[in-house]
């Protein structure tokens, strides 16, 4: 409206008036103005509440119609059809030839079968579908694990077929580039544990046992778990998104046609790289966590670094350290397999990539914690 050339938003409006019936009993309806999509709201509302006269013949007079588009033409046609169904005789007159063409066009493409949405499935149906889906999911996941394992064993038997470049690349992106975030979070975690423990230990004058607390909790449980969760969020999601997008753009199919098994180039290097990287990252996280604990022990409990170290070598056995590190290759395999599997499950759309990526992270963290619990039971049973 600010612009003279702005025809479409100019203050013309669409009109619809029912005039009195003439002497031959014909009711004339005046359609006027611009019947275009942005101005039809009033017409539509009017048509919804209109009371049509019970005249046998109704004429839609469109002589003063100055603009018409597809939406307007459809509304005109729909009105005429509704009236015809109510046993009126309807005539559309005065339509400009180009508008008449448009009406013909709309009429020819109107589908007579009204749209009926498929009925939503019942509760029992949905439960059944979900269950079936879960079973399918489980079997396809097992199939994927099996296939990956076979390919992995084959590639171990033929080491020249292992893609070392891809492994190195993944080592860098999943391992080396994760150092800052893993280090920082473990450091903070060590500090938090030492801080929480400090007040309790101080009460009993057992300051020195801070080394036991931080050392055992970090090395046995927290470092491996924390690192695995960070890596699942960083790399597991990246695997799912990468493979998923490759699936959408048909790159996976392209690999197959070139004669490369997608798992060989996409899954195995990632898994091997992560199995190497995660234990190393965990050792690094152990160190950062201990450092955090030491800093807090020094500032809160006046336990100096050398005393802390001295106590640590008594408190934490090699077995404790190794139980922590020993779990991580399993975590790594879980994260890589879940990420890649969810990536391969992407179908067609951008939304699907997002969904599978989310599932990959949630599932990986879930399975890592389950595995950790199983390890705890196992170690307890073995009395390690």
């Amino acid at each position, binding site marked *: 409206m600010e*612009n003279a*050339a702005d025809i479409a938003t100019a203050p013309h409006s669409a009109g619809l008036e029912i005039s009195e019936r003439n002497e031959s009993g014909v009711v004339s309806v005046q359609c006027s103005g611009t019947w275009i*999509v942005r101005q*039809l709201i009033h017409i539509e509302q009017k048509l919804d509440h209109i009371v049509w006269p019970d005249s046998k013949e109704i004429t839609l007079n469109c002589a003063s119609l100055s603009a018409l588009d597809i*939406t307007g033409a459809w509304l005109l046609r729909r009105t005429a059809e509704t009236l015809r169904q109510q046993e009126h005789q309807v005539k559309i007159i005065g339509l400009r030839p180009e508008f008449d063409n448009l009406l013909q066009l709309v009429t020819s493409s109107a589908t007579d*079968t009204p749209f009926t949405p498929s009925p939503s499935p019942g509760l029992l149906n949905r439960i059944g579908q979900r269950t079936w889906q879960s079973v399918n999911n489980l079997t396809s996941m097992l199939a994927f694990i099996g296939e990956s394992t076979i390919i992995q064993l084959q590639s171990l038997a033929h080491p020249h077929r292992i893609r070392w470049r891809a492994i190195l690349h993944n080592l860098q992106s999943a391992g080396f580039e994760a150092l800052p975030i893993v280090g920082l979070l473990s450091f903070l975690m060590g500090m938090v544990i030492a801080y929480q423990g400090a007040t309790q230990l101080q009460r009993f004058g057992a300051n020195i046992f801070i080394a036991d607390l931080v050392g055992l909790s970090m090395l046995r449980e927290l470092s491996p778990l924390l690192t695995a969760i960070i890596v699942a969020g960083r790399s597991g999601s990246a695997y799912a998104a990468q493979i998923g997008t490759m699936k959408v753009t048909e790159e996976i199919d392209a690999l197959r046609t070139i004669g490369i098994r997608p798992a060989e180039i996409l899954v195995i290097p990632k898994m091997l790289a992560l199995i190497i990287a995660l234990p190393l990252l965990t050792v690094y996280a152990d160190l950062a966590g201990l450092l955090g604990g030491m800093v807090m022990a020094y500032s809160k409990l006046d336990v100096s670094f050398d005393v802390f170290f001295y106590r640590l070598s008594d408190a934490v056995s090699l077995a404790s350290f190794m139980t922590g590190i020993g779990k991580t290759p399993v975590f790594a395999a879980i994260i890589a397999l879940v990420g890649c599997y969810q990536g391969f499950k992407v179908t067609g759309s951008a*939304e699907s990539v997002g969904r599978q990526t989310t599932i990959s992270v949630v599932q990986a963290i879930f399975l890592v914690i389950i595995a950790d619990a199983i390890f705890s039971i196992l170690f307890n049973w073995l009395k390690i």
Partner: protein
Amino acid sequence: MNNTAKPAIIEIRNLNTRFGEHVVHDNINLKVNQGEIFALVGGSGCGKSTLLRSILLLEKPVSGSIQIFGREVIGLSDEQALPLRRRYGVMFERGALFSALTVVENVCMVLHEHTQLSKRLIDEVARIKIALTGLPADAANKYPGELSGGMRKRAALARAIALDPELLLLDEPTAGLDPLSAAGIDELVLSLRNALGLSIMLVTHDLDLLWRVTDRVAVLGDGHILGCGTMNELSKMEHPIIREYFYGPRGRAANEQIWKKK
């Protein structure tokens, strides 16, 4: 068709676009008149799509002016551009349908966003538009991922005409279509123009489409407009790139076919 009395729908003046050191457009002047089917052609990578994207405010040129419906668009914010954007429909080369929505939802979404019409009317109108583009009725409830390339193109066109725009911008409307579907698009473009008085600007490589539907064609090359006029005028021009374009083996075949039909 060089009717200067008709108002210009798109007017580009002294447009310069650069990507780093690479000059894409060097002082381009163009005018698309109302009710015209205007095509932009040129070899791959000559900046056709970039020009289209500049018109759509998706790319910012270095200097120059682009007017749509008589209003300057360069430098407009998204909010300021909204009234203009309601008046043109765009079809992207690869469809760009929202993959999370069905075809009919893709079309309805535009109508819901910009009109207050009832759900029922919007649904009906969306289905009319989908039918207009030649899609079968059952395709309306499918997701873009379930459609073939040609059907996706039609669905994208249905979304482009959802708001009954005055101007339609089509990027490669027939690329990747079988000859029958491509001919269908030809017909559709013509009938839309004739029935609705639309102005249409399209970027294409399809010589059949050029001969059959366009009123004027501009040839883009080396960052310049090498020639602009009707296909007949262009085919008589001497510029080597234009001659190459229209008289290459495929250009000749398309030309001959058209003459046979006439």
